[in-house]
């Protein structure tokens, strides 16, 4: 009996190590309105997971609650089998660009440099090594020539690339990106997709909140369909089905909505 239970735990431990992130039973309420109900989510290592759902589905809230930016009502999230506080440096977050004041008096390189603050901790200042890392991240996202620009002068796509560079500079193993393609021109989109592919090749895990159903298959190999609860989650081929999309978006088949997604299995 003892032997059996030990081996069971071993299996469990091994299983958890395969996941970059495991969320159990997560519920979030704003005031007394329930936004997320008992969300269970497993993000396997090395995948790009798209979190997809209609407006108000709680996609951003899910990410924020997982990262402890919003206090959940119930539930826990572990990263690489450990609580966030122990592995903060391995987890990067790229917020929606609309969440900050772009008129703030700061330059592109100063914002990217902020990505190093986590590893520096309290009181220590960024030095040469940090500046070099920031420079490399700016080069990777194609904004090196904008380094000394004031951030208010940037286009929407360039702003997203600044945030992406700031996340990269932290060199985490797991990235959370909230709508990285929002308000982005074709050139920036290409640059961001390029970075996503590089990250996947490096074995990093990426969770993106994504809006555009048409491109989900292009960017994501795993999909979580979310509308206040998880409708489906898993490899795109299994989870991103017509039936699941219909449930998530609350549409009937004769809307023609799903016909535009003819490529979906």
């Amino acid at each position, binding site marked *: 009996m003892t032997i059996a239970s030990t081996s069971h735990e071993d299996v469990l431990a091994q299983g958890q190590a395969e996941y970059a992130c495991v969320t159990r039973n997560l519920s979030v309420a704003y005031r007394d309105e329930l936004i997320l109900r008992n969300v269970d989510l497993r993000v396997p290592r090395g995948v790009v997971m798209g979190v997809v759902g209609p407006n108000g589905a709680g996609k951003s809230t899910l990410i924020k609650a997982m990262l402890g930016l919003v206090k959940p009502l119930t539930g826990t999230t572990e990263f690489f089998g450990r609580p966030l506080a122990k592995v903060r440096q391995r987890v990067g977050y790229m917020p929606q660009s609309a*969440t900050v004041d772009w008129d703030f008096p700061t330059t592109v390189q100063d914002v990217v440099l902020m990505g190093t603050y986590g590893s520096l901790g309290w009181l220590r200042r960024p030095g040469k090594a940090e500046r070099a890392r920031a420079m490399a991240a700016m080069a990777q996202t194609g904004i090196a020539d904008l380094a000394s620009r004031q951030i208010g002068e940037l286009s929407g796509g360039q702003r997203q690339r600044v945030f992406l560079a700031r996340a990269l500079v*932290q060199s985490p193993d797991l990235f959370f990106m909230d709508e990285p393609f929002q308000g982005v021109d074709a050139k920036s989109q290409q640059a961001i997709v390029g970075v996503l592919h590089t990250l996947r090749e490096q074995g990093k895990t990426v969770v993106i909140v994504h809006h555009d159903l048409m491109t989900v298959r292009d960017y994501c190999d795993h999909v979580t369909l979310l509308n206040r609860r998880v409708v489906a989650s898993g490899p795109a081929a299994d989870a991103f089905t017509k039936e699941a999309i219909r449930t998530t978006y609350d549409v009937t088949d004769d809307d023609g909505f799903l016909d535009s997604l003819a490529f979906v299995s």
Partner: protein
Amino acid sequence: MTVLEFFADHTYRMVLAGTVTIGFVAGALGSFAYLRKQSLISDVIAHAALPGTLVAFLAAVAVAGTGGRSMLVLITGAVLAGTIAVAFANHVARTSKVGIDTAMAVALTVFFGAGMLLLRIIANGEFPGKGGIQDYLFGNASVITTADFVTSLVVGMLALGLMVLFWKEFALRTFDPDQSTALGFRAGVIDTLMFTTIVIATVIGVKAVGLVLMVAFVVTPPAAARQWTRTLRGMVWLSAAFGAVGSGVGAWLSILLGTVPTGPLIVLTLFAIFLVSLLASPRRSIVVTVLSRRRARAALKRELTGEGANT
């Protein structure tokens, strides 16, 4: 009056040194209030400083029997009351549907009301050293003593020291609060430190400038500095410089003109700096923007009519 005569006078020296210190500290730390879009928080702090100061005065008189006019005692009371008022306003805004502007107004008036009540009680009672306590309302720079000056200098430098020490944390939290938390910095710790420095920057000026006008020292220099700079470091330095220069010039003028109060003249000088910044700064000036836009449109028009003529 020659410069030499000016600096030979102890009172003049104290007025100048005291107001320049206040202007420098308030200008530097006001930048963070400005960037967090909480400029008016200093008005709340200044008004809350009144009951804080008066309670500290009463406590000192009750406990020690005297020492009620010690700057350090009064600043301590003002800092405590100011911090409570700030925490109250932010807490109400966060936990209720009352907006931050309303919450700040409520905090300001309730503390000021309590202060006025205490002022009357003290005025009617027998308290040693109560003379001049009403200066806190409108300020009186000519009563700055050497001890007052040294106290505000030391306390002000302490606040600036905290800002320099936690510069990186202040900057990150002000620009992107979520990222700051995600990177592992405790929001409560940074906010407490930051608002403490803003409270200090405000209360050290209340005696000289008065609680009504003190807000100008925290709000105007950053607003002017923002027009000229593109980095946080540049903004804080320039704002501190504007605060110091504006205070110095204002104090100088008030002494030169004789019977004019110092605080109001400084506020007017700061406003002049603000106005010039708004009109003349190269990147954000409203005048320059209109002119350059008109020029660009004219050039565009010429180009288009030229094209039309060629075809």
